[in-house]
């Protein structure tokens, strides 16, 4: 290394290769007491000027970035709508590079990624957004849908609940409710009816009387979740607001039918049919309800003679059903060595066949219960062996359930 030389003016060492002193730079030496204020003032002026320049530059740049972000976002949206998914992903990535934290852009990007089959990438973005804002309803909902698609039931339920109780920017009440309804659909699809019922109770509790459409939707879901009692209450709530709501009448009729409240079911279903309900289930259930009410020997308010007539009719119908079923199954009921429920039922049937007459039943009312027990057993066994019978047999099965003599 070459030897250092000192500046003859200020005695500082000259940097290697420099002939002029950078410290005093050939200028006349200014006294120390005058030098500091001048230099400090100059530095402050430079700093302020630089600050102003930086402010102008960064503002202009930020505005330009925002403009670019908006442009690319719009392009991404239109590409997404046109089904150009790879293009949409690239556009939205670009938009995000100009507006890193924009929630809408990121969410739209996850839509594009999901639509393009890049589920893993979409999930990574959603998880990052969830990490930043675990209470965000929309992010939770998207994650829940992804988890549902991936078959992650516990994860889907967790995120659906996050959406149902999360923070929503727009219309939080409606969004929370619809997230919860989506959760109910998911639970029903996975046969988790108990959990679905719990969620529906929560939804119903938060409904205001004016929201009849939502009340009907909740009531329908309650029916699907196997909770006709609460469903009927909801339908009745709707009907209390407007008796002409056909959907509510139909729903209430079905709920009453499911609850074996056949007189109410008949009335409601008749009203529904009269109001023009086209649901085929309405006609079927109305027919069933009317038949049950015509055939049920345990119906309150009927005379003893009518009760005896109904028992005899039911007994004969059961006998016919037993013979038809045995014939269709090629079971020889005349052969005493044949075993099985149908043979046992035949044996019992033959044993009391002669005694099931109106006169005998009038003399011995207990005989009626024994006959009906056999009728219910025959209906159960023939249904198990040959499938559902005709409308009379189905009505008898419903009567058995209504009487609590046969498990539904």
């Amino acid at each position, binding site marked *: 290394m070459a030897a250092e030389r000192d500046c003859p003016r200020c005695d500082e060492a000259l940097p290697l290769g420099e002939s002029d002193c950078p*410290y005093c730079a050939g200028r006349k030496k200014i006294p*120390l007491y005058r030098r500091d204020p001048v230099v400090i003032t100059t530095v402050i002026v430079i700093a302020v000027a630089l600050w102003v320049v930086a402010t102008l530059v*960064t503002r202009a740049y930020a505005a330009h970035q925002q403009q670019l972000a908006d442009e690319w976002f719009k392009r991404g949206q239109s590409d997404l709508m046109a089904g150009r998914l790879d293009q949409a992903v690239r556009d939205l990535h670009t938009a995000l590079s100009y507006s890193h934290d924009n929630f809408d852009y990121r969410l739209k990007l996850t839509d594009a990624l999901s639509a393009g089959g890049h589920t893993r990438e979409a999930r*990574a973005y959603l998880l990052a957004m969830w990490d930043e804002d675990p209470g965000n309803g929309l992010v939770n909902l998207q994650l829940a849908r992804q988890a549902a698609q991936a078959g992650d039931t516990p994860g889907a339920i967790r995120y659906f609940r996050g959406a149902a109780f999360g923070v929503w920017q727009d219309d939080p009440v409606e969004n929370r409710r619809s997230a919860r309804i989506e959760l109910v659909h998911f639970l029903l699809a996975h046969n988790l009816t108990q959990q679905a019922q719990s969620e529906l109770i929560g939804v119903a509790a938060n409904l205001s009387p004016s929201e009849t459409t939502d009340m009907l939707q909740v009531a329908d879901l309650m029916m699907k979740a196997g909770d006709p009692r609460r469903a009927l209450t909801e339908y009745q709530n709707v009907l209390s607001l407007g008796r002409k709501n056909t959907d509510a009448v139909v729903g209430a009729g079905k709920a009453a039918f499911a609850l074996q409240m056949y007189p109410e079911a008949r009335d409601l279903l008749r009203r529904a049919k009269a109001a023009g309900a086209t649901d085929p289930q309405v006609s079927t259930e109305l027919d069933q309800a009317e038949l049950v009410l015509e055939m049920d020997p345990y119906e309150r308010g009927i005379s003893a003679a009518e009760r005896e007539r109904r028992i005899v009719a039911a007994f004969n119908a059961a006998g016919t059903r037993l013979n038809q079923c045995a014939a269709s199954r090629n079971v020889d009921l005349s052969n005493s060595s044949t075993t099985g429920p149908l043979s046992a039922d035949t044996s019992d049937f033959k044993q009391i066949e002669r005694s099931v007459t109106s006169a005998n039943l009038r003399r011995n009312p207990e005989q009626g219960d024994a006959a009906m027990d056999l009728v219910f057993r025959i209906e159960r066994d023939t249904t198990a062996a040959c499938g559902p019978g005709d409308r009379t047999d189905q009505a008898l099965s419903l009567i058995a359930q209504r009487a609590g003599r046969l498990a539904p």
Partner: protein
Amino acid sequence: MSTSSTPASATAVPNAPVSSPSRYFALRRTFREERLFLLLAIVIGVLSGLSVVCFRVAIEWSRLRLLGSSVPPTGVRLLLAPSLVGLLVGLIVFFIFPKVRGSGVNQTKAALYVYNGYISFRTVIGKFICSALAIGAGHSLGPEDPSLQIGAGIASALGRSLKLSREKIRLIAPVGAAAGLAAAFNAPISAVLFVIEEVIGRWSAGVLGAVVLSAVAAAVVERWFLGFAPLFRIPALQGFRAAELLAYVALGVVGGFASVLFARAISVLRPKLIAMPRWTHAIQPALAGVLIGAIGYFGFPQVMGAGYEFVDQAIHDQFTWQLLGILAGLKILATTLSFVSGTPGGMFAPTLFIGAMLGGFVGGVERIAFPHLAGSSAAYALVGIGVLFAGFLRAPMTSVFMVLEVSGNYSIIVPVIIANTIAYLISRSLQPVPLFDMLSRQDGLDLPSMEEQREVTLVRVEDAMIPPPETVLIDNMVVEEALKRAENSPSDVLLVRRSPSGWSTVRKDDLKRLVGEGKPEMTLMSVLATQLTPILHPDHPLDTALHYIYDCPLLPVVHRADSHRLEGVLTMADILRTYRGAVTESVDPRH
């Protein structure tokens, strides 16, 4: 009589004797400089922060104009921009700003150690313009190292304007460097550590406070203008299982070898290109631009420019493991081409890019091969960043703190330390000279480095001291008795234990002289008065003894808990013998 009044255990080096007027001006100047220096550090931080903000906007503006607003860029611009701008930059560097070649880290270090802290403002301007153009046009380089040099240049210019002393001008360049880097990377702690590890090359308490102040001021300014968002948006990282550490060990091994490959490529190609005819230096950036443009045009535009958006995407698991591997390999190639061609720009951002891609790649492979071992993609990408930093830039401390600062998550610290250590050890064993030191040597400079300093074994007092002498005098002895005892000692100098504490020394000749003067009944206490000998402890660096040995030929080495308990003694001969032994035992790793 030879005595010393230096306070016990004091280690201050006495100032050189100065005449009274000079002393007055020196004191005044020192006071003024000390007063100014910390204030100046903040001013430097603010100015550097503002400059780096403008620099980053200039890079973005240049990218938008040259490559278009699409991310990643597309079309024929990919081929044209890096090559044509490479030609322009090559010519500017060749004819106008010859000192702006390369990253800027070495140049700043050279300014500190060779040019007395001098960085011309012309270099600052040249670095700003050329780096903004080159990075914006897609050359595979980053803005951090140029920001570091811009900060250092501003500090140097400011120091010269304020006519600071040579010592302070030397120190002020790293202060500006830290500010520039902190503003560019939005990570003040990492910036401070990097400057200490790579620019200053040693721990210096004198400059640490100013470096920290300037880095913080610059980071505040940068955040004021460009927002508080971190460089990368890191998803929340879960804790890791112990078994996952095996996966990070594998990442450390792969990262270590990748670092060596990257460093070797640069170390082999750079001297060859420098050795080519001088006129070719003007067109080398253009040729590198053609090759980089071709990489971008034929399917991998992600490797162009600094590539932060793609690091972010890698962290968010947006690439397949195959693509991550390809991008890591191509980025090594593209960065090597850009850097060895002399295009101004930094290695910091490419290192982050390669590390993130490599981490993601290893994580992806492990997820397929050993699903039970693999963690999240973000964790792998982050650890990968640290691994390359430790292995390639050889800044192990910065690598750990940078990952923590960028991620804001301390749960990742164990994998980071393990993987970084492995990569660092592999890199050190296969590439003994760190990258920046190697670049300095290729430029004919021999600069100190932190790694070199770590190699130096500290020689301590305990290595040189000899057992305590049998004859130790006590200060209540009379001179005659002391002389009798001294006659039995082979040494000319004897230790005197003072009460209630401390030690002094007395020469045999002085005792004889006192007896000859008729003062045999005087006690040593009255003879020695308050003159105490400095004491040493066994763990003191041996350098400390050198401060006192000239005035005190025999130094007592005492126990730290009991100053009267003599552990040994030290003479000049012992010190010299020990230093001679240390020199012959150690081999300078550089030679």
